Every structure is written in C-alpha cells, then in structure tokens.
C-alpha cells in the first residue's frame, strides 16, 4: 500500500530550543499511526507542522503527494485536525458549530449532516446549547465530530483521550478503529503506551527530538527482546539456590513472593532450555513457570533509560 504521509528529517526550533532534530517516518494509507512521547517531546509541534499550521526549519513532509510548505492548500483539502485543545466556537451551539464547518466545506445538506453527527456523537440533547456549557468530554466529542464532517482522508488526533473518563476513552478507541476500517488514515499522538499498542498499526516513539524506535507493536517488542521467565519454587531455599545457579543471567527476587524469581533472557528458546536444564540437573523442582513478554511500557522505559544513560 502507498504511503499517504511521508516525513523526512523534519526539524523545528523555538528560539534556541531545538524540539525536532530530524524526524522521519512514513504512514500507509488507511492505517493508524501513533506518535508516542512524554510531555514536551514535540508531538504537538509535529502535528502542527503536518497540518500546515506551522513551518518546519528543515526537512520535508508530503501529505497526499503535496508538500506541506509549498502547497498547504492542497494538503488542507485532504486532512482534518483535532488539536490537543478543543477547537470549537464556544458561543455557537453544537449544531451551529457543525453547520459552520459544513458550510465552509461546501457540503450539500449541511443540516442533515449535522444531525447525523450529533446522533453519532451522543450530543443530540445538547445540540441547541452553547458549546461553552459543555463538559470536557462533550466538547471533545463535538470537536471530533467537526473534524469528521466531509469525510477527510486523513485525520490528526492530538492526544484524543487525554482528560476523558474510561467510558469515553473506550468509545474513542472504538471510533478510531472504525474510522480506519472505513479507510480513513488516522494520525494520533498519545502518552499512553497501552493506547498506542491497542490502536496503532505503526508506532513511532519520539524522544529528545528524534524517533528512537518505530515499527508495529510486535516489532517494537522484538526490537529489544528483554523477555524472560518467572520461576516459582516450593521453598524459599530452592529459589535462592536457583538464583545462584543461574547467575549468568540477571536474576531478581520477586518482592511479594520470596519463592519466586525473575530471570531475564534474550527471549529465545535456547536460553529457556538452558535455564531449565541447569535447574533439572541440580534437581530443583519448578512449581510454576511463566514466560514474560516485554510490554511496550518496558520498551519505552528501556529506550528512554538507555538514551539518558548515554
């Protein structure tokens, strides 16, 4: 499948503070892409450049084949932005906000489209109330409904679930999945690993101005194969003995259960076999054996930890 967004060596500074130091990635048409990063990593900065609101200092970004700097108007034709902070007109009602966007996009039967959106986003009861009276979650929903008017090819969602309660968050996740199923390309940013892991087809981790890791959720897990096994024994003494025997691997004792140890391996079968052989030869019985897959959280923390250690 073709790349609908292509970003090469993107750079951006604010005064002396270099926020993006050469960011590159490609996004396939119809996929869900997650840009993952902690506070101040530069996610919003990247989204603003791609949505033509701000200009990069260096590098190149093309969306739907158009350069974001040279042909912003064509780029705007195929994108829709939902920024980190709700971009609704507070004085207008929910319905008026939707109709405003419909008119600006020259959509036929704006009233009907607005009503459909109000229904889809559970805003019918508040349709004729000014947006200033909406709760945070309602405002967010209206904001996204406005972005979806006219079925854009690409939708940017900058931290779409920040500040939402669990119920609304799950509704948001369902909506994002549904959008992608209908062919919309979704570019979302998030600070939550589980969110990226659950939603995205492709994840890029932005840290200190660079993409420190990227790939599918599975790729990222194997990128740093810090898998391991958790072993539980019948007696604490056995656990201690096992830890001694396995000292070629990093071993930690479980904090809650002294009969349990965690052995870090490369995650491959050969090392598991070796661990088991050592213990069997020493006649130590294992009462429980669990393979531990690294979570994206581990990946994220490890990458950040390594970068900071350097």
């Amino acid at each position, binding site marked *: 499948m073709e790349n609908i967004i292509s970003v090469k060596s993107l750079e951006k500074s604010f005064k002396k503070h270099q926020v993006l130091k050469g960011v590159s990635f490609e996004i396939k048409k119809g996929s869900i892409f997650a840009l993952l990063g902690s506070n101040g990593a530069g996610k919003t900065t990247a989204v*603003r450049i791609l949505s033509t609101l701000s200009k990069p200092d260096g590098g190149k970004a093309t969306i739907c084949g158009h350069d974001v700097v040279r042909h912003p108007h064509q780029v705007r034709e195929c994108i829709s932005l939902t920024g980190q902070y709700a971009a609704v007109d507070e*004085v207008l009602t929910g319905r008026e906000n939707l109709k405003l966007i419909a008119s600006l996009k020259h959509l036929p039967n704006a009233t009907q489209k607005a009503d459909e959106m109000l229904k889809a986003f559970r805003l019918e009861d508040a349709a004729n109330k000014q947006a200033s009276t909406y709760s945070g979650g309602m405002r967010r929903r209206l904001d996204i409904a406005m972005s979806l008017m006219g079925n854009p090819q690409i939708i940017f969602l900058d931290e779409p679930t920040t500040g939402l309660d669990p119920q609304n968050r799950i509704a948001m996740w369902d909506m994002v999945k549904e959008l992608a199923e209908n062919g919309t390309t979704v570019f979302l940013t998030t600070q939550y690993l589980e969110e990226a892991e659950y939603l995205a087809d492709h994840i890029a981790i932005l840290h200190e101005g660079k993409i420190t890791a990227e790939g599918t959720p599975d790729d990222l897990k194997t990128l740093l194969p810090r898998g391991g096994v958790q072993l539980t024994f019948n007696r604490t003494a056995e656990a201690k003995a096992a830890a001694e025997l396995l000292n070629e691997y990093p071993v930690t004792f479980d904090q809650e259960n002294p009969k349990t140890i965690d052995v870090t391996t490369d995650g491959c079968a050969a090392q598991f076999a070796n661990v088991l052989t050592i213990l069997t030869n020493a006649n130590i019985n294992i009462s429980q054996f669990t393979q531990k897959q690294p979570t994206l959280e581990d990946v994220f923390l490890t990458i950040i930890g390594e970068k900071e250690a350097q």
Partner: protein
Amino acid sequence: MRIISDSYVMFKRSMKISLRNPDAIAMAIIVPAFVMWLFGTVFGNITDVGYDNYINFIVPGIILQAVCQATTAAAITVNNDINKGIIDRFRSMPISKSAVLIGHVLASVARNTLTAAIIIGVAFIIGFRPEAFVADWLLIAAILILFMLAITWLAVICGLVAKTPESAGSMMGPLFILPFLSSGFAPTETMTGAVRWFAENQPMTPIINSTRALMLNTPTENALPLSLIWSVGIIIIAFAVAVQVYKRKLA
C-alpha cells in the same frame, strides 16, 4: 470565488456571536440612543453653536463617536478568536485565510449601520430636521460606511496585537476622544491654538462636515473629497497592516 463565499459564512457566524453578546448589543443600540437623546435635549439647551437647531448640528458627531465606541466589540471578538483553538481549525481547513477577519469586519459594519440608523431615528424624534434628498442620503451612507470600515480595520489591528480581549478594547480608547476634538460638537472656529489646529486637520472633521452639509443641504466644499481620501487611505493602510500582523502572528 472562494473568498466571497467563505467570508459570507464567517459574516453569518460573527453576526450570531454579536447577537449573543449583551455588551455588543448595548454598545450598538442602547448607549448611542441614550447619548443622542442626552446631547439633543439636555446639552442642546445650554449650547449655542450658531445653528438654529443644535440637534441638526451634532448628529454626525454623535454617529462617529458611537461608531468608534461600538467598534471595540470587533477588537474584542478578533482577539477572542485569535487566541482560541478555533482559529487553528479554520487555518487547517482549505478556506480563504482572511475570511475570518473579513467576517468580523462585515459584521461590525452591519452593527455600526444599525447604530447610525438608531441615532438618526432618535434624533428625528427629538427634533432633527434634515433637508437631504435620496441621492444625498446615499452619499451619506457611503461616507459613513467607508468610515466604519476604516475604524473596524483599526479595531482588527488592536484585536490582533493585544494580549487579552480587555487590552484590545482599551487600545481603542483614543478613538473615543477624537470626535470631541473635531467639528462634531462645536465649530472649529470656536477653538484655539493646538486644539483648533488638530481639530481642523484630523480626518473626522471632513467626514463630519461633509455628512452634516449633505444632511442640511449646504455646500460640502472640499470636505467631501477629503473625507473619502482619509477613509479610503486608512482602510488601505490598516488592511495591509492587519494582514501582515495576522500572517506574522500565526507563522
């Protein structure tokens, strides 16, 4: 053309915003009506400007003063928009960039026109007796609308450069005083020194003089071309500055 349809949509939006803003309504309707009544009745009895009817004399001055004051609403709404997320939505859409500003300007001119009509209406009730014909009224409308456009583009600049809506409003302050330092409330010949020089040479004086002459069917002399030159000149410069500030602000 795109800019026209986009500006029209934005104009309707700005009108809706105006209608929900009690301050803007008060500034556009109630305050000017009251000021006209006050000047026409109370001050009219104590002022002698050489006209047999003081109300006939001050209508243009009252209109200009009210327009300046009511146009703060444009500065405030522009400032509100520019500092809120909605502007990012507009800018990321394939619409004409200046449409949002043009919408506010047109809504402001519409409010100002209502203000002027209300002032003329109240003036009529308390004794205003113009001698203008239809063609004169059309010319008066043109002069006043150009003036409104000029003031509104200045308000847009205030709205764009100010940090808060309050300071955008107060940046318009000097414009409230200008009509009093013109031929609006007393003939410039009755003034002295620097005040007189200023009153004779500032743009509001020819605008007031030409409007008054057309209303009362007296010769406009060079006040008419001067007023048009001033208004059009201010519109061109203020528009150019506003667009530059807008672009820079959102770079």
